[in-house]
């Protein structure tokens, strides 16, 4: 059986969870086994609808303590569920929760982990999963040799698919230890699209000259329902918050559309964004290296181009 870990926050199931459900269901189909889901804590969504993404059963450990991430506690509960349900394959999203928990479950169960997977496994010879390496500059095909196998899937790497079934639902009775991690405070930027989940990202670089000029970036992001990002010097100069910094040393993203405005396209910047499906570069220097990595390019002054682009998108969206 393939067991898919369903991540949620603020009692809502995350978008990345629908991706892993669809992915896990596809893996189960490849192997001719069932796909089932595991959710820790409580959510307001009706869990039987997860069947729409191809799982036949949803297991829930509905203890409210589990609404807060404590990686140690989670790993213990998930490992116990895997053992009692006899799961052979466990799927996580390679998001913040998956990065904290999947390695622990792997070490606990001695189950090989491929993290940052970008495709379905190749099961013709062994169990080979393609993952992202060298910060987006290459892929590695990794064979998992252990009996239990764990995959954490890169966000935005697998198309959500609806399968149209209703899942049965089961409470799992697992004893919970006291958490060791106490949450002191949470600081979420309300109303913004989280960068790692965003399908469209609009990003600005030093070419924008100063923080007071970011309105054109924000306006464009707004009409596209996009998240905003920036290059490293922009965050380092305090023009934009650090959590917007993308690149080798910042956040790595793979949206459907990345629009780079006034960013030169240094190799360390590209390392964070080169897995984007479509890249648009707006830069006044036709020689900027970013154009080599772009699908569409506009050479010219961002201060003139970006507002016009925003207007055209508004028109198209009616």
């Amino acid at each position, binding site marked *: 059986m393939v067991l898919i870990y369903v991540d949620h926050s603020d009692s809502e199931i995350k978008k990345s969870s629908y991706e892993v459900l669809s992915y896990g269901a596809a893996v189960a189909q490849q192997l001719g086994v069932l796909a089932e889901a595991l959710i820790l804590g409580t959510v307001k969504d009706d869990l039987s609808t997860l069947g729409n993404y191809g799982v036949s059963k949803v297991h829930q450990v509905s203890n409210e303590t589990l609404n807060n991430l404590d990686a140690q506690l989670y790993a213990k509960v998930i490992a116990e569920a895997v053992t009692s349900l006899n799961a052979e394959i466990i799927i996580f999203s390679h998001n913040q929760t998956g990065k904290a928990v999947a*390695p622990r479950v792997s070490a606990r169960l001695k189950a090989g982990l491929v993290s940052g997977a970008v495709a379905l496994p190749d099961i013709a010879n062994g169990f080979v999963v393609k993952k992202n390496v060298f910060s987006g500059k290459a892929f590695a095909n990794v064979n998992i040799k252990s009996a239990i196998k764990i995959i954490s899937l890169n966000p935005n790497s697998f198309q959500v698919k609806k399968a149209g079934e209703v899942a049965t639902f089961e409470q799992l009775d697992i004893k919970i230890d006291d958490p060791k991690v106490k949450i002191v405070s949470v600081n979420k930027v309300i109303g913004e699209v989280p960068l790692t989940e965003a399908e469209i990202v609009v990003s600005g670089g030093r070419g924008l000259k100063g923080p007071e000029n970011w309105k054109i970036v924000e306006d464009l992001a707004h009409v596209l329902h996009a998240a905003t990002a920036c290059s490293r010097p922009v965050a380092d100069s305090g023009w934009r918050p650090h*959590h917007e910094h993308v690149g080798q040393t910042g956040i*790595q993203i793979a949206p459907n*559309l990345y629009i780079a405005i006034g960013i030169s396209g240094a190799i360390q910047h590209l390392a964070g964004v080169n897995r984007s499906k479509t890249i648009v570069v707006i830069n006044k220097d036709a020689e900027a290296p970013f154009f080599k990595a772009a699908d569409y390019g506009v050479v010219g002054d961002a201060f003139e181009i970006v507002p016009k682009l925003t*207007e055209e998108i508004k028109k198209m969206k009616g």
Partner: protein
Amino acid sequence: MKILVCISKTPDTTSKVSFKDNNTKFEEAGVQWIINPYDEWYALVKAIELKEKDTSIQLHLITVGGADCDPVIRKALALGGDEATRINATSDDSYYIATQIAEIAKQVNYDLVLTGKETIDYNSSSVGGMLAELLNLPYISLAVKLELNNSAAIVTREIEGGEETDEVSTPVVVSCQKGVAEQRIPNMRGIMAARTKPLKVVEPVVIDALTSILNYELPPPKAGVQLIAADNMQELVRLLHEEAKVI
């Protein structure tokens, strides 16, 4: 108080990535090796900052790798740290690496174990979590801020769309990223002192790797950029809508 920082060696960020032997091996010719940026700039520098505040702290460094890691670990010692251990083994399996580090860490009872958030070559984000599990310690990943308050660690970590601040008693394992500390450059005195700091080489314990890399692939080359005139944003919108189908 004792702190352990896990140091890995990675190709310089500007290295050309190519492969040899039927795409089964990374082409190392001409590659500059550096300390993995997350390990150096954030994990190690944070540990050095903590030691500067409390000189009774013992700061140990550890790496799993062959003799070719010695220059990198010496550079880490030059930045700061009292002694280093190199476990003499090369592996691309995170579980193998974490198990080797855990074997050594168990003997010392560290109060704080720091890793980088990921290596920039394997991008696994795995070794820290595995190590925490093997040591049966709590784990906070993707830290952007870290302070110690007696026996508690106050750690701010990245969450989707923001940050969360957690409190946890030490000992604890933390993976570090940007924000935790500010980058610094080793000075001459540090470089001289590093030459005499102990660098212990130990042999690995025998365990099986759980995964192995069969081969590598490079992404297909981009078709090339399609340029759109600056005064024709209507055309760009049409292409994004009809051709790329992304808006």
